[in-house]
Each structure stands twice: as structure tokens, then as C-alpha cells.
């Protein structure tokens, strides 16, 4: 098969699969779920998912455990004080960057 045709079809397959996984549940579940347990579970879902995606992966995000750990600590301090998403994100980046000058 021609290389660019292979590439194009592969990207199409990739995009279509990803889209169907995202689209079907949003379209199928249109009624309000009644079960109190399920509703509670869905309420906690974003926090669980984010917790699992953050730990341990944040410690590998900068290529250095130390800079990432300092960035993590900075994010915790700023978020406990209720700062906005962008402030917390930039504080973590700045802390990691500055730490990098000392340990890297």
C-alpha cells in the first residue's frame, strides 16, 4: 500500500475509534440516573480520575524527580489557598524551572 494512503487510513481509524468512545455514552445516557449510589459515584468520578492521573505521573513530568517534587509542593500550597487553575499551573512550572537551575 502507498505510504501516504496507509498513513491517511490509519489516522482515520484512530480518530474514528476515539470519537465513537467519546460520543456514544454522551448520546446514550440522556436520562438522569436515579440510583443514589451511582449518582454519588459519578459525582466523585472526576476527582478519582484526576487523582490517579496525577500521582505518581507528576513526578515524571519534568524529567527530574526533584524539580517535579518542588513543583508539586508549590501547586499544593497555591491550590490550598484557592488560587485559580492558571495560577497554580504556572506556579508549579516556575517552581520546577527555578529548582532546575540549582539541581540541574
Amino acid at each position: 500500500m502507498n505510504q501516504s494512503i496507509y498513513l491517511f487510513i490509519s489516522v482515520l481509524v484512530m480518530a474514528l475509534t476515539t470519537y465513537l468512545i467519546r460520543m456514544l455514552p454522551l448520546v446514550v445516557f440522556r436520562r438522569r440516573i436515579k440510583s443514589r449510589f451511582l449518582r454519588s459515584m459519578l459525582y466523585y468520578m472526576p476527582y478519582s480520575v484526576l487523582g490517579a492521573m496525577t500521582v505518581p505521573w507528576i513526578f515524571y513530568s519534568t524529567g527530574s524527580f526533584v524539580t517535579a517534587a518542588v513543583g508539586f509542593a508549590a501547586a499544593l500550597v497555591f491550590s490550598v489557598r484557592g488560587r485559580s487553575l492558571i495560577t497554580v499551573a504556572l506556579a508549579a512550572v516556575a517552581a520546577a524551572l527555578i529548582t532546575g537551575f540549582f539541581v540541574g
Partner: protein
Amino acid sequence: MNKDKNNSFGAGVRDGIPIGLGYLPVSFSFGIMAVNGGIPALAAVLISMTNLTSAGQVAGLAILTAGGAFTEMALTQLVINLRYALMGIALSQKLDKGFNLLHRMLCAFCLTDEIFAVAASKEGEVSRGYMYGLLSLPYVGWTLGTLLGAVAGELLPERISSALGIAIYGMFIAIIVPPACKQRGVLLAVLLAAGISCAIEYVPVFSGITQGFAVIICGIAASAAAALLFPADKEAEEE
């Protein structure tokens, strides 16, 4: 009145800024990776514009460069991205009446982990305007980052691009910490999920579990435990 303001297109755009910024370094490194793997820059951008998912794209790229089969591609995407189905069910409960079939189908295209997290952790229902505002900048950031990484990947100093890698996680922390300080159920869900996630990563028995599946396992187990111990009646039913 205040509620409407927080549910407007502008409020969505504002909440999307950190996501879009956070996507820049991630998609930037995807762009570099794609070009290094022999994929044309334009194809890399096309992948980002049609997929909008980090883990899935990196896995897809590996299959592409190895010349893998279409079925392998579809199966891999299914496994890695199955967590979106879970998130879709949760988000389906948050959308207001303005979301008819067409709008649900349109928004689904941009349902990323981060957009889901921001929309689903928002108080009350989510409006159409807010949702479209929320997803606009992340889409631009993801596309632009890929393009920049693909055509100019080597220009950004290494020190800065590696520090930028933490941006997206900083945003995750900003989403989970404030409610975790106020609600014990959220705190439990977050700590449990983080603990299970570490166990899956570091305990050798679980080494066969991919990251996509790990997210599903952690999400279901931690949320179920939190729901059992702290039924979220008040929060979940307030709308």
C-alpha cells in the same frame, strides 16, 4: 444571575486558558516525537486535530511508525481511550437541556480528561455556551503546540520545555485540592485513587495493566468507595 455569568461562553473560555496553556508543552513534545518518527508535520497536526488525546496519540504514533495493522490501531485506541466512555457517562448527567443530539455529538469530539474534569466538577449544570467556550482554547493549544513542535521542536530551550511538562498536573491539583479540603468524600476518593494508581504502577503483579485501564480501575474503585462511605446526596442532587 451570578450563575448565568459563570455558565457563559466567556466563563468557559476563561476556564479553558490553563488547559490550553497546559496542552502546549504536551502537544509540542508530540509534534517533535512524530517528526522524529518520520511522520510529516502536516500529518502530525492532522492527528492532533482529529484525536485530541495525548496517550492515545503517542500509542497510535508507535503503531504508525511500525506500520501496524488497522485492527491493531483500533483496538489500542479502544483500550487506551475507554476511560472517556466512563467520563462521558458522568458528564452526560451534568449537561443542561440545551444539549440536543447534535450538540452532544459535537462536544463529544473534544471530551479530553481535562475538559471533562473542569466541566464535571463545576457546580450545577453545564450550559452549551460554557462548554463551547471551555473547549475552544484547548483545541487551539493542542493543534498549535503540535505544529510548533513538528516544525520548530528544537528551538525551545530544553530547561523550559521540561519545566512546562508539569503545567497540566498543576492544573489537576488546582481542580482537586479545594473541594478535597472541604469534603471528606472527595479527599477519600482522591487519596484512594492516587494510592491504587501507585500500586498498579509499582507492584510487579500489575505490570501488564496499561495506563488507560489503570485510570478506569482507579476511577471506579475510588469513586465507589467514596460513594459508599460518603453518599454525595447534597452535592449530586443540587441543580
